[in-house]
Every structure is written in C-alpha cells, then in structure tokens.
C-alpha cells in the first residue's frame, strides 16, 4: 500500500508550486487558477489523513471545500470580469489604485 506520507508530501509539493505560481503569474485569471491548485493540494492532504485515521471526517471536509471553492470561483470571476471591463487589462500589476 501507499503510505499516507507520500500523499502528504505530494500535497506539499503541489501547494508550493501553487504558491510560486501565485507569486509569479501576472494574469489575474492565472493567479486565480493557482489558488484553485492550492485548494486541491489541501484536499489531497485531507483525504490522505482521512484514510490514515480511518474515519470519514476528512472527506466530508473535502466536500465542503469543493462547495466553497465553487461559490468563490463564481463570485471571483464576476469580480475579474468587472476589473477587466474597468481597467481594460488583465495584468494584475496594472490594478494598483491602492498605491500610496
């Protein structure tokens, strides 16, 4: 059998990649997608722990994460559309009206 630790390590790697992508991408949608990657990595960890501990709490939590991610994606993409309409650009560095 595959030890749960392998899954957790994979989850960590995916999470790290998600963080790096989050920092490096300039397109707003790409950044959003890297957030989804991070969430997925966390889901993987949850399920792995759920299996290793023998109860289903982890999987339930994964369901909730997916639900919330869906809601978040809907609203977030709506905001992204508005930003794109207002700033005529999808480059996150152009959206800097909060600069001091």
């Amino acid at each position, binding site marked *: 059998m595959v030890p749960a*630790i392998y899954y957790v390590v994979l989850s960590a790697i995916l999470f790290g990649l998600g963080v790096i992508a989050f*920092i490096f*991408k300039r397109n707003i949608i790409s950044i959003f997608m890297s957030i989804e990657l991070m969430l997925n990595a966390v889901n993987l960890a949850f399920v792995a722990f759920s299996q290793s501990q023998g109860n289903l709490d982890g999987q339930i939590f994964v369901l909730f994460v997916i639900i919330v991610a869906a809601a978040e994606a809907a609203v977030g993409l709506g905001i992204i559309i508005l930003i794109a309409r207002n700033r005529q650009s999808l480059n996150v560095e152009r959206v800097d009206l909060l600069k001091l």
Partner: protein
Amino acid sequence: MTPQLLVFFVLAALAVIGALSLMLQKHPIHSALSLIVVMVALAGLYLLMGAEFVAAVQIIVYGGAIMVLFVFVIMLLNAGVEEHSNFSKLAGYAGVPLGIALTGFIAAAIARSTVSVQAATPGASIASTGDISRMLFKEFVYPFELTSFLILVAIMGALVLAQREK
C-alpha cells in the same frame, strides 16, 4: 513495487507536471487546461485511496463546472498572452526562495509528524457513498445547510456583479 505504488507515481508525476505547466505557460488557456490535468490526476489519486465519492465530485464539480467557468471567462475576456511587466521587485527576487522555504517548512513539519501518518495503510476500506451521505446528513447537517445558504449568496453576488452599469 506494487501496482498501487506504480499507479501512484504515475498519477503523482502527472499532477506535478500539470502544476509545473500551469506555472510556466504564458497563455491562460493553457494554464487552465493544465489545471484540468491536475484535477483529473487528483481524482485518480482519490480513487486509489478509495474515496470514490470525492473523486466523482472532484471530476463533476471541479473539472466539469469550475474549470468550464474559467475557460468561459477566458474566452469572454479574450485574454491574450501575458504581457511581460515587472513592477514588483519584491515578488521578482523573493518569490521563488520564499516558495521553496514554505514548501520546505511544510515538508519538515510533516517529516516530524506523528507516526500514524507515516505508517498508515490507507485503502483498507473503501468509503461508500452511503456512509458519506449518512455522515453528511446526520452529523454535518448544520454546515451542509449553511453551504446551501452560501451558494445562494454567491449566486446573488454574481448576479449583482454581472449587471450592466445603469
């Protein structure tokens, strides 16, 4: 090398390649497709672990709804190749080291973690959908109802956002 281990490595490699591709691609549509690859790989991993319901939900909701939404938005906005701007010096120089540091810390934390995680043998029991639904509607009914409420709020939010300026 047991078959499970082999499958695991294949799927893991797929997931990592997909993540790397997400990071390195210039066009957002390519990144979206890479993300779908990652999700499918993860679904496979869930199946390997015996969480069939979660795998199914992953494919249906995540891959079938959320990613489709992403692709639609990319199409709608006519997102092109990412332009090469570099205003943020901090992100440029400190980004990679920090990301690696984060990963390292997590990995180290895991390495130090409890024995049960390390020696666990998952997959002994396949989690049945019935079991999950029983748990969902008995012990977790309260959060379940809350999430339906949350989705309602999200719908209203999306509607408000999508309205044209009067």
